[in-house]
């Protein structure tokens, strides 16, 4: 066997890996969230710098400085909540940038966590068990079909403001999902292998009590991976 050819193979593999990592990194920068963040951070620094000479105008320009910093973050993370058309299940879809997380549950024994992408106005999500959600963002609402355990359910759901939204908590043995609806009602499932109704969540503190111990729930924004 040749003495040098394995080294050439090694070098080619290393170069190929680095090249592919670079391709992956160009994909990241072209998707947008990073560039919009850059715009947000640069806007407040330039605008106040140009304002101080005219003291009268600072009061008027301040709101316009604040607005652009708030609007992109709200656009970046939106949580839609609601029920399926036949009220079979409750559903929450969190969208952030090009990514999305959804949770469907009936509050008793059926639940599914789905992750996926938002491309333009189209949502495409899947769960590990093969459940899927196909939806479209239109007119400030999400309309589509979620297929849980092979059963397709139609839905149209609207944006929800905190404390309404989607929450997820983990214990050593289980994962708990809660959907808090705008009317304050909540639906959740505690899944430790056998799904069961979730204990009540205090949305203000983000905690629940499971088997006597406190569990902290985090608000799902849409770019998580499970």
């Amino acid at each position, binding site marked *: 066997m040749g*003495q040098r050819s394995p*080294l050439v193979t090694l070098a080619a593999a290393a170069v190929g890996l680095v090249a592919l990592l670079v391709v*992956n990194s160009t994909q990241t920068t072209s998707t947008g969230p990073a560039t919009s963040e850059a715009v947000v951070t640069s806007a407040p620094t330039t605008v106040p710098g140009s304002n101080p000479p005219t003291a009268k105008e600072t009061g008027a320009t301040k709101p316009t400085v604040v607005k652009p910093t708030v609007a992109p973050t709200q656009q970046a993370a939106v949580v839609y909540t609601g029920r399926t058309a036949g009220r079979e299940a409750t559903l929450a879809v969190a969208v952030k940038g090009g990514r999305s997380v959804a949770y469907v549950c009936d509050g008793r024994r059926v639940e599914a966590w789905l992750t996926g992408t938002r491309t333009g106005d189209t949502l495409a999500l899947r769960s*590990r068990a093969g459940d899927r959600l196909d939806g479209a963002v239109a007119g400030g609402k999400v309309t589509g079909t979620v297929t849980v355990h092979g059963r397709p359910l139609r839905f149209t759901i609207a944006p929800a403001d905190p404390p309404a939204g989607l929450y997820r908590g983990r214990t050593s043995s289980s994962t708990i999902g809660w959907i808090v609806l705008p009317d304050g009602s909540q639906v959740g499932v505690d899944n430790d292998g056998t799904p069961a109704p979730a204990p009540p969540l205090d949305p203000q503190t983000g905690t629940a009590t499971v088997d006597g111990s406190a569990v902290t729930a985090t608000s799902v924004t849409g770019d998580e991976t499970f």
Partner: protein
Amino acid sequence: MSTAPLTATSRVAMPLSIGAAVAVVLGLYGRLHDPTGVAVNIAGFSSTQSVKAWLATLALVLALVQLVSAMALFGHLRPLAGRSWIGPLHRWSGRAAVAATLPVVAHCLYALGFRYDEPRVLIHSLLGCFFYGAFVAKMLTLTRNDVPRWLLPVAGGAVFAGLVGLWLTSALWFFTTFGIIR
């Protein structure tokens, strides 16, 4: 007195330690690099995951070619003994197998990172680092003629076992979860 055994030890230790260092570096990169979750979609496939599952399956098939051709090279397969095309077949199927895994590992490292939130993912992450470390160790073993004869089959076996484990914890999981889909 002890120079000969020491150099013999270092001849074995050199490829193994460099391989181990590569495995650690890959693991650290996977852990420290912030996972982006970005998927490069390829036409004709439903998702990045399915592309990865099929590339891993291709690599596994090539790895089986590797196993058989390696056995032939070591003279364990009577019918194939002494055939001149076995060596090139072993080299090129190996290169093709590693090439097939590169897009997969690039996505794993860049978009997902080293994770340990469930046993399958932890085992897969560890095996991924181990596989490339073992691959580097095997390539370095090949560059020297003075290494012990057992080192090459051990390194090759480690690479093969690593790939089989990687396939079991990724592509097999994918195909059994989502069905055999493109």
